[in-house]
């Protein structure tokens, strides 16, 4: 089976014909990963639904006392920039690793930059969690705070997972070279990473900015 020129086999950036069989191989694995991603999105959706049905109680500090506007802006910037740099990484792979013996330096640079931005995001998020807990808003205080911590925490766990996954890819690419296995891993990881930013759009809009309004 060969793909007609320019036609994409799966959602997300396609490797393209210059990658030969790697491109065809990507169809099933990337589409399968999209199905997983959609089910993950439903999980996030249910966490959002739970959050939407809770109300900040008068007993405890509310959004205005707990949320740090500047920190939320920084986290948003970090994650959006990291989404772009992860796109640059996949684009580098697509454009420069079609043949053999291409230099992996540029690819590793973009991946490590993405990791760095992701760590910046996590650093601000964790320090926000700590200041929220010390300001009288630990997750055990009310239903609203439980829902808030689990929703934002679930996203933070995903980001942590994405960073670890990216580091594994960096090591794999450096040790084994950009072969089919790591190309497919990188394609799927990029979909995962872009999705985390999509989920973050909802979190910063409705949880944080909506709470501060």
């Amino acid at each position: 089976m060969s793909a007609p020129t320019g036609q994409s086999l799966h959602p997300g950036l396609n490797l393209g014909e210059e990658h030969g069989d790697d491109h065809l191989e990507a169809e099933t694995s990337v589409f399968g990963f999209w199905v997983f991603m959609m089910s993950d999105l439903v999980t996030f959706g249910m966490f959002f639904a739970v959050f939407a049905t809770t109300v900040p109680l008068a007993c405890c500090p509310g959004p205005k006392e707990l949320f740090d506007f500047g920190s939320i802006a920084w986290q948003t910037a970090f994650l959006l920039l990291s989404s772009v740099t992860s796109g640059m990484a996949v684009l580098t792979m697509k454009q420069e690793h079609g043949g053999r013996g291409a230099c992996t330096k540029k690819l590793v640079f973009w991946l490590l930059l993405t990791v760095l931005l992701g760590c910046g995001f996590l650093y601000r998020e964790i320090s926000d969690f700590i200041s929220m807990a010390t300001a009288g808003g630990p997750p055990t205080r009310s239903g609203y705070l439980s829902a808030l911590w689990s929703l934002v925490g679930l996203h933070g766990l995903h980001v942590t997972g994405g960073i670890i996954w990216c580091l594994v890819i960096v090591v794999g690419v450096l040790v084994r070279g950009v072969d089919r296995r790591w190309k497919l891993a990188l394609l799927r990881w990029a979909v995962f990473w872009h999705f985390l930013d999509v989920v973050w759009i909802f979190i910063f809009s409705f949880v944080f900015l909506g709470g501060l309004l």
Partner: protein
Amino acid sequence: MKKSKELHHYLTGFALAAVLTIIPFTLVASVGGARSYIVLVFCAILQVIVHFRFFLHLSFRGQQKEDLQLVLFTGFILFLMIGGTIWVLGDLYTRM
């Protein structure tokens, strides 16, 4: 697609996403009020579309139709579940 065109695609997406992020943030910082919430929702939905279109390369054309259906169906399920939850519990809340 040409190399520079692909790069341009990402950068367009980034510029649009950045604008759609800056609007709600400045709105909350300066204006506030319940009316801003509508703009917030609007910008969020637009930005999700921008991300899907420019970063995840999803479109209405070509073979990606099935993939788009996968995403749209998930969106429908989410709408039912989140909308239903808010509807039912909101209704109970007003009755209390």
